[in-house]
């Protein structure tokens, strides 16, 4: 039991490191692609080692704790945000065999854990003893608490359709087709709402008010430097990965290859591609979508942000839940 735990711990840490390296690099390259430029090209071929160099720089930086900060909470916040990101990773199925904890309440669990992220952001902002940090933290709190509702409701719609809270069961229900194909309108609406709302929960553009550079320097992590700052950045990317993985699992079949119907030739061809590749492909597709948003939309104002959630997304997702329930009861999905 202890050995299993150790193996899991080591692989999760490795995953964190790899994801951090890959996603930061990807972000830069996608940004460059969108803006018709090359991006990092100097360190290694096509700048592959750029993130490594950045990491070395971050590690060697001085760790500053501002005067008047609450030291205990200031140090706790980046730790907490990483721990929470790790916890949310547990019930996600990476392939048909790779799953850390096959929980029967997986979807609910991820929703619960991701609602804790806001605490670490609030703590970091408050402990910094800096007005920009505090404003950033407050904005972030208001934003996350609001958009959590839509995320939760779109999850509920998918849970209704698939009839289970367990990720592996949900993947198995998509053997004949992914939910995005067979779930009709509710699934599409839920997918869109989920992507929009979880982008907001991640505090990413166009919802990056908590760290709006032009107004708040860097929001809740203004005062952080060195490795603690790196932890915040890292967990932001991990969270992005988790959100994309959840979306991929619920809507795009997770590790399930592209199937249509039962046991036909097309399905067998698709089965030759290993599940892990399917999973990674879908996740990175959605990550790409989220990065795409960043370079396409301008930042919202705080009132627009709250209007979007409370006046549009929330009513839409409430009605959507009803529609999903109706479809489930009548059995209209395939």
């Amino acid at each position, binding site marked *: 039991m*202890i050995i299993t735990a150790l193996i899991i711990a080591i692989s999760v840490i490795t995953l964190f490191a790899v994801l951090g390296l890959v996603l930061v690099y990807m972000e830069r390259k996608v940004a460059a692609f969108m803006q018709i430029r090359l991006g990092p090209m100097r360190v290694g071929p096509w700048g592959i080692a750029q993130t490594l160099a950045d990491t070395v720089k971050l590690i060697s930086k001085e760790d500053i704790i501002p005067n008047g900060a609450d030291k205990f909470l200031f140090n706790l916040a980046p730790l907490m945000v990483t721990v929470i990101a790790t916890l949310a990773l547990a019930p996600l199925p990476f392939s048909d065999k790779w799953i850390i904890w096959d929980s029967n*309440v997986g979807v*609910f669990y991820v929703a*619960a*854990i991701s609602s*804790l992220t806001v605490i670490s952001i*609030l*703590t970091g902002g408050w402990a910094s003893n800096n007005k920009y940090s505090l404003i950033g933290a407050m904005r972030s709190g208001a934003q996350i608490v609001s958009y959590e509702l839509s995320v939760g409701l779109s999850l509920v719609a998918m849970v209704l359709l698939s009839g289970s*809270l367990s990720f592996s069961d949900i993947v198995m229900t998509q053997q004949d087709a992914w939910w995005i194909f067979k779930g009709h309108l509710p699934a599409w609406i839920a997918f869109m709402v989920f992507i929009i709302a979880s982008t907001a929960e991640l505090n990413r553009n166009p919802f990056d008010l908590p760290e709006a550079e032009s107004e708040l320097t860097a929001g809740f992590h203004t005062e952080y430097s060195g490795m603690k700052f790196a932890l915040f950045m890292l967990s932001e990317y991990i969270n992005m990965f988790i959100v994309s993985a959840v979306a991929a699992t619920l809507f795009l079949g997770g590790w399930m290859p592209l199937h249509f119907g039962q046991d036909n030739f097309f399905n067998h061809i698709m089965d030759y591609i290993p599940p892990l590749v399917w999973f990674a492909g879908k996740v990175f597709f959605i990550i790409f979508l989220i990065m795409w948003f960043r370079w396409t939309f301008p930042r919202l104002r705080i009132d627009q942000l709250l209007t979007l959630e409370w006046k549009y997304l929330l009513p839409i997702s409430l009605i959507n839940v009803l529609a999903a329930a109706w479809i489930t009861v009548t059995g209209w999905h395939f």
Partner: protein
Amino acid sequence: MKAILFYIFSVLILACGIFTVTSRKIYRAAIFLLLTVVSVAALYFLMEYTFLGVVQLVIYAGGIVVLILFAVLLTHDSGSLLPPLGVKRTVATFALTGTGLTVFLYTILGRKVEPGSGEFNEPSVKMIGGQLLDLYNFGFVLPFEAISILLLAAMVGCIVLAMKFSKTMN
């Protein structure tokens, strides 16, 4: 292994609980409260009652503690230390908690507790949901609906108290 984890979490619950009430910084107290409720959730997970554990996380950690933190952030002067307890209050607190502890220990130690027999089988979420909305077989639909009205009333109450009318409107 389970026993070790159980004791670790129990110690965490107790320690963080004590820190919650003794901390003189209100924000820290809230964070210790968070650690307490998360440890309680961990105990539920340890007992393999995952649904209850997740409910604990959603309601207490994700809901109530966040609410408290917001309230702290909105409060003026939340960064300063709370005034220290005087001798009188300390004595009174100890007397009260001591009495409470004695009474509870007296009651609890007097009970014969027998270890439960058989395995605990977690009810499936479907069963819980069905039971909540069941009309006949010992279902909980009446309290469920009653609570929905309570929440409606609470929401309306909050809005009424928070709503501001501009002077020109009246």
